[in-house]
């Protein structure tokens, strides 16, 4: 049924030398939902999202956005197709301000190409609007990112991704480095952006978080997707069993 999925991954393969990181991965992401991928270290989660965000080119298989097959030669290609990624290490430049980070490499400008001047005020204003609209608790968009807390930085990274994505926001362990309270704030933010219509694909080690946030969950093991569930139909304990492969042996 093409078109009913925001993203469809079909039989994706990727090897690094002798290591087969992905051995035929297939999954779907429904629009306007949080879809989670769980799996142990080395299950292939990171490789999969790097294929989706254009960092790696897959060796085989297809990626479809809204039913259309796409190929990414670079992260820029993926971004042009509306896929934004929130990286584990945040990908923010500490010495730049919040608004400079939000508009990094997508600056609003006036004038002809080689002598383009930045519309600093316009960028500042729309960054402030963005931050307000997502109810992100950032002191001021004119502050350098270095002065923000871990949760605020993650909020900026997510806000930036939401602003520029039209298809999908990928989040790689969005709360791994955060404390409890900040984790809760970031989860609230993720719920808000999904309510506003963004589609999210999240990798998480935190099963409770997956249960709290997602509507669909895919389990990866050994470079394959071994199962998929509506989150409401599965328990955390069952997911753990599937991730470790315990179910097959018991």
């Amino acid at each position, binding site marked *: 049924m093409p078109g009913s999925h925001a993203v469809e991954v079909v039989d994706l393969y990727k090897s690094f030398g002798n290591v087969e990181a992905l051995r035929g991965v297939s999954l779907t992401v429904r629009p306007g939902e949080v879809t989670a991928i769980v799996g142990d270290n080395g299950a292939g989660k990171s490789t999969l999202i790097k294929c989706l965000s254009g960092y790696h080119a897959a060796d085989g298989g297809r990626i479809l956005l809204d039913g259309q097959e796409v190929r990414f030669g*670079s*992260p*820029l290609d993926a*971004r042009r197709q509306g896929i934004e*990624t929130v*990286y584990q*290490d*945040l*990908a*923010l*430049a*500490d*010495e*730049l301000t919040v608004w*400079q980070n939000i508009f*990094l*490499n997508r*600056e609003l*400008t006036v004038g002809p190409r080689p*002598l*383009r*001047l*930045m519309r*600093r005020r316009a960028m500042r204003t729309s960054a402030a609007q963005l931050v307000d609209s997502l109810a992100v608790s950032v*002191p001021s968009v004119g*502050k350098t990112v*270095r*002065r923000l*807390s871990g949760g605020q930085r993650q909020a900026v990274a997510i806000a930036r991704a939401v602003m520029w994505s039209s298809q999908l926001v990928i989040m790689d362990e969005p709360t791994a480095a955060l404390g409890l309270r900040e984790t809760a704030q970031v989860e609230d933010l993720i719920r808000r952006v999904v309510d506003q219509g963004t589609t999210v694909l999240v990798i998480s080690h935190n099963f409770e978080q997956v249960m709290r946030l997602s509507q669909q969950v895919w389990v990866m093991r050994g470079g394959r997707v071994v199962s998929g569930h509506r989150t409401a139909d599965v328990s955390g304990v069952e997911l753990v069993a599937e991730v470790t492969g315990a179910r097959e042996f018991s």
Partner: protein
Amino acid sequence: MLHDTRAGRLHRFARAASLEETWMKATAPAALVLAGIVFSMLSPYFATWRNVNGMLADAAIPVLLAVGMTFAVMLAGIDLSMAGTMALASVVFGLSYTAGWGLALSCLLSIGVGLVVGVVNGLFVGRVRIPDMIVTLGTMGLVQGIGLIVSRGIPVPVSDPVLQAVASSSLGPFRYNFLIVVLVVVVLHVMLTHMPVGTHLLSVGDNVEASKAMGLRVPRVKLIGYLVCGAMSGLAAVFMVLYVGSTQPATNTDYVMKAVAATVLGGTSLFGGRATIWGPALGAVLLTVVQTGLTMAGVEAFYEPAVVGVVVLAAASMMRGRR
């Protein structure tokens, strides 16, 4: 309420941080005012317009090199080849001028030499990914050598009426060479703070991975930074010729140290990502003022490199504590 105390702490932290930033930015201007007052007390001649104007003219080469160097330092790099490039560019300027190719072409060739060295530096740092220190040390030796081979080490006198006018005539109260330098500083300031490429340079200097993730072509951005360094070395060579009245095939590496000192005094982070153009420009003026003032106060010129060296170490240590 928990939230309030937390917000209060954050607020205090932000205020302390911004004070610190202001302090870094204020170093060069504050020290400049202080030096002015001290030297005015030491020598009655210091605070005359004649002397001030002379110092501003003397500062032309250090300012050009400092703002150029800033473009390498904001990338968390350094360009050690600047003084050598300046020497080679002056030699090429002399060759072109004595061959009768005219002033304009000679100036362009001089800047062209700088751009070529900038391309080499930028490609080796950005694409081959060799540490900036090693690359520019290598090109420093190379350009120094070529300059000496081509010129046989002999300075060529250049007396051009236009160059002499730029060196000695004034528009209003200011000499032409000072005004040209101000223009260059303004252009580079616009480039850094009002053009996307400026943000990209700072971003790459701050966090290469983040910049890549945002689709910036890191080697290209680094190349642009080193091109600006090179262009400033080439332009400084023209100022050297008009200042000394001849080409200077021998490299004076003091210029490199001074440029780094001025850059650091101007609040540029040695770890990259934070820089202004006016800061290092003021830093270079400050160093020139101190040099002139010390001479007037009867301190031997031999002390100058030591003073600059102490400034570099002190400023860099202060910055070390910030990370």
